[in-house]
């Protein structure tokens, strides 16, 4: 609760709303003891006095009554009626919702059908019908406004109750022989109460506005008694000659509703944990680059990642997801990058084309060079022209990575058309070719499919076809086979391998599966906690892993026909990368770790092409 209030008042707008609303509420409470004139005493000689007249701070209305006094009494009445309506609607609505949700079955069905019917009305029609039946009057307006808001509470509270009613502690209470009434009052009600209060806080503004509206129409409070709505309604006739009589109550309604809205928004935001992490931020078109230090010189590789540092800045914390990683590929070469989830391999891959979500992602150092050109230094437009055209991505889980509402044919055609000016028919033809190239049967009819109409393997082929659309030089495949079953996985790998041999493209293959690496990759780099801990030719690394982590990782892979062998899971979890310990990040999980492993900087050393970042490697490299 304290944390909630702290969050709430850190939000300046919400705090402002709370202050304004608090001030108005205090004024409304104090009205009877304030030295105000009688709000109903008329003085026809003093009609329509302007604000700041002698004795009438806000002037007078069409009957010469003091506006300040009428405003404050009216505010008091409006607030009282609005809040009363909210309390009545919340009580009855919640009771209905709890009964429907708790008993379920036919009771639930019947009640919710009725609620649906009520919700089928535009709300004011229902309110008007009720006022028509009961006759105009403030009490009847209150009943009408409360009644039209009952369905809202009933529906919300029912939802919460349904999820509660299935929980163990309710079953336990039933088994303990408690009656329904007692369970509802002692077990359910305390749990739904906070939600009722929140729902009330977000709707009370509406209800104040709605009752004011009915009064404005002449269906609510009747003269001489006046709430804000009827003050405004009465003032309307003289709006042109004496606008202040309209503006005074109108501005007050506005202030009340605005402050309630601000406060309600603040409450909602403080309760929504997603806002705290800044996760609701929109990722920019290109990752933010804020490099410190010198940019490494160019090499003659096709694509080279040099001392790349990618971080996530969340509040004051800095997560070093990629920490001085260097990788490179030549044409026709396949490089595997392997590691557990959270090791930074995907972030490394996304950094290449500036696709790391930013905020919170920041590239803080290093370089990414494509044919020598530093991609971290080019403009967005230039980078965009290379995305998909020179370097293409294949992502994991194509159900989430393909647009769910576009046909796959259109998505393929778009990939071509955003780099080449070709006609729709030409693009379509090429899309068909691509689908055939990735061996999708009935390619012609598949073009018209939506992603959800295809199987996982088919979608992954579409993902590959899309990456191939512009004949790129490099493909970065980020766990493209993880979500697939083994036979489909093998087909996809064979397909990628063919493409590499036929077209001479370079592949960076991100995975956590050594089996896949062995099948496809020429070289492999092992990542742990944002760093490369070992790299070298695939066979050499697999046959004789040098880093204890690599060795443990390979030991995790079950071998077919390998007889009985202990499958050793690695104890512990990878470290969180915002507070990395000194020395080797793997040391806390390593059986061979000694004291000096947790001191200073340990370099990535060895004779090329093999390198290892370990003081006591398993094999000399």
């Amino acid at each position, binding site marked *: 609760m304290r944390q909630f209030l702290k969050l709430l008042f850190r939000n300046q707008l919400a705090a402002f709303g709370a202050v304004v609303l608090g001030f108005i509420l205090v004024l409304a409470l104090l009205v009877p003891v304030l030295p105000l004139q009688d709000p109903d005493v008329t003085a026809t000689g003093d009609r329509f006095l302007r604000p700041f007249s002698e004795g009438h701070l806000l002037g007078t209305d069409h009957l010469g009554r003091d506006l300040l006094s009428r405003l404050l009494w009216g505010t008091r009445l409006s607030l009282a009626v609005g809040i009363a309506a909210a309390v009545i609607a919340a009580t009855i609505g919640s009771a209905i919702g709890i009964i429907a949700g708790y008993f379920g079955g036919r009771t639930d069905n019947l009640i919710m*059908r009725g609620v*649906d*019917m009520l919700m*089928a*009305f*535009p*709300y*004011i*029609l229902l309110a*008007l*019908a*009720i006022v*028509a*039946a*009961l*006759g*105009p009057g403030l009490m009847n307006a209150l009943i009408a406004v409360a009644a039209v808001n009952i369905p809202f509470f009933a529906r919300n509270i029912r939802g919460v109750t349904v999820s509660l009613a299935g929980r163990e502690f309710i079953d336990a209470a039933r088994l303990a022989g408690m009656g329904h009434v007692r369970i509802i009052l002692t077990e359910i009600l305390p749990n739904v109460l906070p939600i009722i209060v929140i729902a009330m806080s977000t709707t009370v503004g509406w209800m104040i*506005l709605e009752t004011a*509206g009915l009064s*404005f*129409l*002449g*269906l609510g409070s009747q003269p001489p008694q006046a709430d804000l709505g009827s003050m*405004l309604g009465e003032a*309307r006739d003289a*709006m*042109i000659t004496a*606008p202040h009589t*309209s503006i005074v109550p*109108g501005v007050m309604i*506005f202030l009340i*509703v*605005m402050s309630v*809205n601000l406060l309600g928004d603040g409450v909602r935001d403080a309760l929504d944990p997603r806002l705290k992490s800044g996760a*609701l*931020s*929109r*990722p920019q*078109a290109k990752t933010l680059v804020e490099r410190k230090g010198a940019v490494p010189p160019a090499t003659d590789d096709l694509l080279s990642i040099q001392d790349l540092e990618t971080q996530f800045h969340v509040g004051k914390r800095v997560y070093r997801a990629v920490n001085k990683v260097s990788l490179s590929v030549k044409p026709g070469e396949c490089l595997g990058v392997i590691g557990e989830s959270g090791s930074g391999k995907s972030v490394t891959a*996304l950094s290449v084309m500036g*696709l790391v979500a930013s905020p919170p992602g920041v590239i803080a150092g290093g370089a990414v060079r494509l044919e020598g050109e530093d991609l971290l230094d080019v403009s*967005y437009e230039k980078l*965009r*022209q290379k*995305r*998909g*055209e020179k370097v293409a991505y294949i992502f994991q*889980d194509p159900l*989430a*990575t*393909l*647009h*769910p*509402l*576009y046909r796959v044919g259109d998505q393929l055609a*778009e*990939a071509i058309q*955003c780099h080449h000016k070709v006609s729709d028919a030409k693009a379509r033809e090429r899309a068909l070719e691509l689908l055939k190239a990735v061996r999708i049967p009935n390619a012609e009819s598949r073009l018209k499919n*939506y992603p*959800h109409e295809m199987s996982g393997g088919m979608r992954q082929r579409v993902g590959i076809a899309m990456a191939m659309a512009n004949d790129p030089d490099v493909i970065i495949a980020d766990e493209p086979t993880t979500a697939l079953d083994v036979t489909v996985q093998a087909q996809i790998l064979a397909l990628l391998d063919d493409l590499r041999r036929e077209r001479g493209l370079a592949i960076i293959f991100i995975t956590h599966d050594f089996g896949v690496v062995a099948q496809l990759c020429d070289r492999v780099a092992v990542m742990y906690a944002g760093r490369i801990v070992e790299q070298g030719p695939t066979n050499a690394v697999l046959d004789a892993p040098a880093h204890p982590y690599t060795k443990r990782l390979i030991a995790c892979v079950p071998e077919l026909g390998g007889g009985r062998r202990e499958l050793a899971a690695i104890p512990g979890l990878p470290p969180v990368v915002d507070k990395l310990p000194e020395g080797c990040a793997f040391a806390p999980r390593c059986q061979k770790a000694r004291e000096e492993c947790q001191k200073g900087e340990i370099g990535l050393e060895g004779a090329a092409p093999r390198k290892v970042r370990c003081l006591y490697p398993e094999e000399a490299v």
Partner: protein
Amino acid sequence: MGSYILKRLISAIPVLLGITVIVFLIMALIPGDPATAILGSYATPENVEKINRDLGLDKPAVVRYFIWLGNMLTGDFGRSFSLNRPVLDEILERFGATLILAGTSFVLCSFLGILAGVVSAARQYGFADKAITFTVLIGISIPSFFLGMMMILLFAVNLKWLPVSGMYAIYGGGDLPDLLKHLIMPALALAAVATGVIARLSRSAMLEVLRQDFIRTARAKGVKERRVIRGHALRAAMVSIIPVLGIQAGFVLSGAVYIEIVFQWPGIGRMLVNAILQRDILLVQGGVVFVAACYVLFNIAVDVAQSMLDPRIKT
């Protein structure tokens, strides 16, 4: 698609019946004697009896309901005693005016709201975002009837740009430009709150979508950022925006009651308020049922639009 529309129409029948039951119950539960309510306390017994017979109040409630329902289905909504003409004629005449006002407002709030939301999301935390967020906050907090009055003061009385009220000029009006001149202020005043609500929702829906994986895919393909926002992201966000448009249509229809009063617009809302003040029960009953039924049908149209937009919905 045709069978889906038919299915939705059939499923609307119980809702429509439910609406008539609810309206009938509310009207049937009038405390006291409706005849005296209509005639006042000086009514003669003969008059009371005549009114009771006219309203069918001498029969049991269930019978009365079915007579009323049957009459409505054959187009007989009864006769308004305050206007002394058939209820349905009056409703149809007034409904056109409301449709022009509420329809224009609905188009305005949908277009402006989505536009503001998209711009706001695309420039999150930038100047445009802050300006829009602030305007939206004002827009959703200002009562439409007060906004309407202030607009009249400013644009009609002080600046004299637009007519004060009404639907057509009394002399020499009646053509389209005249209608538009009269329509601008009430349509904008009516659209204000809904525009704010739609803008807020569109903004958060866009922000939600922009974090999705398929947006990253679009960017990885090299799609231009403008198209990423206006095409890929907006298309996906529309799936959650459209149902809110349906809900807001109800609010626009509701708000029309206030705006019609403020701007003396000859619509159905003004008719209802006058009917209530005159205690013209049949006119209220008929008007409420008619508008609610139109709203149900409109929501079916929204569902159909939704299913056309989202192929994942089984039709």
